[in-house]
């Protein structure tokens, strides 16, 4: 098992590679010096300047609004699409449907962006809507690619779901549409949640597609950061990064903790049930 020693070593190196940039971001967000990467003493002034930066705050709000909208709509659309693909068997147009769902996953962002922009322009000329580009067009673009990710996540979850659960409900007198709400969705709720989080993250992360379909006054946080850091490293961006990383880390730790304790409880319950039965039989 010497081979595994090498793998473990590379794992350590890889993790260092993944984390050193993030850690330096956090450390230097507390740097009082304006000069990049030159430690000038501890300070929280960049956090203060971040919160006083009206542009930054407005962009952050917009980004969150778009993210919430896009993730929620994408989960609704993706649930419908994933359920159709997993449950309806073959239907006319299925191949085209699943092609349209998976293609955006592999489409380069620049192409998605340019095609949506041209579409919005053409629509604007044809029917006068959307008259201008802004939050709405960004949201539409985000819903579109997020729907693809959500669909893939939910479709594979539904395919793996024991079909007899839904059949049992039908056998007990439940109509098919009702089964979706009584049985299917409650059981796949964790997958719905993780699909929503994935869509939300993807939306917050998007820069390229937004840069095509954004309009004046709809600058999102990534767009703002991009234009700022193209010129120079900005300490208040470090502060922002540190805040985001803190949120993500705490969220992940809490989620991991909740999941682990649930899993432990489930295992304990199962062991107890089997022990009780063994005792009853003895």
């Amino acid at each position: 098992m010497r081979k595994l020693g090498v793998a473990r070593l590379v794992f350590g190196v890889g993790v260092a590679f993944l984390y050193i940039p993030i850690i330096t971001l956090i450390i230097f967000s507390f740097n009082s010096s304006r000069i990049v990467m030159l430690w000038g003493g501890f300070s929280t002034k960049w956090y203060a300047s971040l919160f006083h930066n009206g542009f930054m705050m407005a962009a952050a709000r917009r980004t969150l609004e778009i993210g919430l909208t896009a993730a929620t709509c994408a989960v609704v659309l993706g649930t419908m699409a994933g359920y159709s693909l997993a449950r309806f068997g073959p239907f006319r147009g299925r191949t085209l449907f699943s092609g349209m769902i998976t293609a955006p996953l592999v489409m380069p962002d620049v192409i998605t962006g340019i095609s949506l922009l041209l579409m919005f322009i053409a629509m604007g000329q044809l029917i006068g809507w959307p008259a201008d580009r802004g939050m709405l067009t960004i949201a539409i673009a985000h819903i579109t690619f997020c729907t693809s990710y959500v669909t893939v996540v939910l479709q594979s979850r539904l395919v793996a779901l024991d079909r007899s659960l839904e059949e049992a409900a039908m056998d007990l007198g439940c109509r098919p549409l009702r089964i979706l709400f009584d049985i299917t969705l409650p059981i796949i709720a964790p997958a719905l949640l993780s699909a929503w989080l994935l869509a939300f993250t993807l939306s917050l992360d998007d820069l390229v597609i937004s840069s095509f379909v954004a309009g004046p006054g709809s600058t999102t946080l990534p767009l703002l950061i991009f234009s700022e850091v193209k010129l120079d490293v900005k300490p208040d961006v470090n502060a922002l990064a540190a805040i985001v990383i803190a949120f993500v880390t705490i969220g992940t730790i809490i989620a991991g903790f909740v999941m682990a304790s649930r899993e432990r409880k489930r295992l304990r319950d199962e062991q107890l049930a089997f022990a009780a039965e063994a005792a009853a039989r003895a």
Partner: protein
Amino acid sequence: MSEFLDSGGLATPAPIGPGAAIVPEELAGLPPGPRPNDRLRFPGNMLHSLGNSWQRIMVAVPFGWMLLFFLIPFAIVLKIGFADSVVARPPFTPLLSYPDGDHLALTVTWDNFASLWQDDLYLRAYLNSLKIAAISTVFCLLLGYPMALAIARATRQTRNIMLLVVVLPFWTPFLLRVYAWLGILDTNGLLNRFLQWAHVTHAPLQMLYTPFAVYVGIVYSYLPFMILPLYASLERLDRTLDEAAADLGAKPFAVFRDITFPLSIPGVIAGSLLVFIPAVGEYVIPDLLGNASNVMIGRVLYDEFFSNRDWPTASAVAIALLLALVIPMILFQYLQAKQVDAP
């Protein structure tokens, strides 16, 4: 009663969808065959009294959305790619027009594509993109494979923690992760200072705004995409296969070469595609970390569109970029479909 009469479930016995649980496995992939009344069918014959309306809605809403905001926009790109460039608003000639008022004329031009060949800016940018993506993919694989193997071979609890450690940076915004490298690779940055402090170099190296920085950025951003599919395929492997090979006299490296690696090839392919495809069209990383002489195709497209306002050329570039990616994309779609359909 009338509901299922409508659906044809009574008059003609409904052909069954292949999704039904008891269809023998070897038959599940059979083509559905011609049907007199090809409506949506719920697996088994669950459908016959649904009236189908809710199912139609379930399909139609996302279908319509993707049609309107994915397929049609894409068709528009195609259209503009074949149109002439003019200084106007919009800056291209219509593809379909009524030149003499009564009959429709289709104006198609290959000029945009021809110019892609003639001007070596485009060709260089293409080849450069493919080269950068390919090299980055190889580095991702070299770094990601041992990492995935280490995770797959860890005990159950450690495995979850290791996975979390690898995935966590993915939840940090992409732009911020790329941005972090600006401060590290800068001439006055952390890495240069470290190298000088360690007496490896005496003068600061130019690392930022070089291809090296682009490789670092791409490998850094896409590493989780390589590790996750690799881990998935390695984790599925039956460990007793290794033990059987070792029992038959294979040394550890031979076990890896003869058993583990060949069986993980689907993961290698999936991971490589997940890195390669987006890397070819990457825009942000080369723009922040690379230099102007090493331009990638995403940047060219962006500039044609926004700076030169040459929409037809931009569209032609988009189409050509897509063509370059068609084979890997189809491969990816195929793997995806196989993975989703096989429980």
